């Protein structure tokens, strides 16, 4: 399972980076979303992938019997997803405004201030 996840994450990173180097700002935002998802899945995998075993500590013991997945990483992802959602929502509105103002979605045309 970890191997499969490694390939999925690698694929997401590759696709995200490819989208980011495109000239269209819409594709750049898609790339950002893919990169964010790749990072979240990476954290998810770092916390071990274990099915059907809740990380509950039995009475009298000091830690849950292994193998269990680390619940903290999933809490981290939850936070990261919320932040990513907010940031991507902002980025969507921004590219809409940029398109209204500049009249194109080609990054190469956005150079009026680079003199």
């Amino acid at each position, binding site marked *: 399972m970890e191997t499969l996840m490694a390939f999925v994450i690698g694929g997401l990173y590759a696709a995200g980076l490819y989208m*980011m180097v495109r000239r269209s*700002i819409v594709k*750049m935002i898609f790339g*950002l979303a893919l*990169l*964010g998802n*790749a*990072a*979240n899945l*990476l*954290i998810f995998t*770092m*916390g071990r992938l274990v099915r059907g075993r809740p990380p509950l500590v039995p009475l009298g013991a000091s830690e849950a019997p292994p193998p269990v997945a680390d619940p*903290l*990483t999933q809490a*981290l992802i939850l*936070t*990261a997803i919320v*932040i990513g959602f*907010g*940031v991507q929502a*902002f*980025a969507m509105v*921004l*590219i809409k*405004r*940029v398109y209204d*103002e*500049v009249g194109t979605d080609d*990054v190469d045309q*956005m*150079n*009026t*201030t*680079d*003199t």
Partner: protein
Amino acid sequence: MQQAVLLPILIPLATAIAAIFARKQRRLQRLISLCGAAALLGAALLLLATVRRDGITTLQVGGWPAPFGITLVADLFSAMMVALAGLMGLSVVVFSLESADVAHEEVGYHPLLHILLLGVCGSFITGDLFNLYVWFEVMLIASFVLLALGGSRGEMEGAIKYVVLNLIASSFLLAAIGILYGVAGTLNMADLARYSRETPHSGLLTVLATLFLVAFGIKSAIFPLFFWLPASYHTAPVAISALFAGLLTKVGVYVLIRIFTLLFIQDLDYSHNLILTISGLTMITGVLGAVAQNEFRRILSFHIISQVGYMILGLGLYTPLALAGSIFYIIHHIIVKTNLFLISGVVLRLRGTLDLGRLGGLYREAPGLALLFLIPALSLAGLPPLSGFWAKLILVRAALEQQSYLVVVVALAVSILTLFSMTKIWGEAFWKESPAAGEGTPAPAARALSSGGRLLLLAPAVLLALLTVAIGLGAGPLFELSQEAAGQLLNPDGYIEAVLGQAP
């Protein structure tokens, strides 16, 4: 006085909320903003005094013991940075009382300013890497909105570059934090410091160090990751870009210094030599970029990059004197660079443009302003007896002691080129005759300044210029403070003990 750690977070948060509720009443909102900024400076100075008296101060929010709870830590370095953030916040708020557009204020200029300060202060005093990520995002979101607030074409173009490159950095940072958690099983910085001292060196930690270097390298604009900075800083309103120039990249530098003294110290040959090389290249590319520019704020933006090179030079050398030099340099730089941007704002108000070709004659018209520009400009270039001279002297001495002669040559050459660009601004904007009217395109009409407005615009600049001179004339106490802070950084046992409550 543990609660002193919490105040620099609570005050900007409360101010921002109050300012949002007061958005219909402009005068009230400005009053709240001003009081909040003054209170933040007061709280930051209180924190500095507390840390100076009691040593490293920690607070476990909610009472959960470290490394499980949310830890806030203030050592001398972070307390100094918070104090500077408070000072810059107050200066910029006073400046924006006159410079901010009514349209900007109505859509939340003041609340966003304080949320930005909230994120900056939070990044300085958090003791946990994931919380650091969250504070960084708070800071970034506020800066995104501030940058795009005006909605003009230039601002939109700057904003899209700034937003995209900073979000890439954030996703790198998130991935690095995730892998580090998988390796070490903790994200509390003191716990991580203990972990990295107890475990033998592994290749994975080096990879992580590089990932963190890239993530925070983008945020602190080091070579070759700085391209977003000169593309965006000059597009924002002046007060905003002054705050960005003073504080934002320095948060990245602060974190670099923090994690490369606390966490990644196992492979100094690789990581710190890499940082040293990057610092040299950052200085050179930044200053050469500035030489080619012809716009007031773009020149200053490129100089931020070259100055960041000096700051991480001390980290790359990694000796007590060098780190003290870095800390001294950061303090000097924040004061001077904010000041220069504020002065560019005054020039913009007087002339309506910042294009050097169309400026001129300001010395004849406003000799006081010209003098006010000259002080931070010469300080930036490192002329004695101003603060920049001492900052560079300490770093150069530290480099000589390490026999890194090449980097000394680079540092000195870059400071000559800095002087060159400062004299270029001086010559073009202040000294030469004003371009004759009717020649070429006429400058956009400059708005007239009332005497009260003049006071509001110039008071922060005068205060910061006086601070530069004061640091230059009495560098001793500040240098001792920097040395003490560097001592705490290089000997993290105190930090670990303060957070985890027992000797490692």
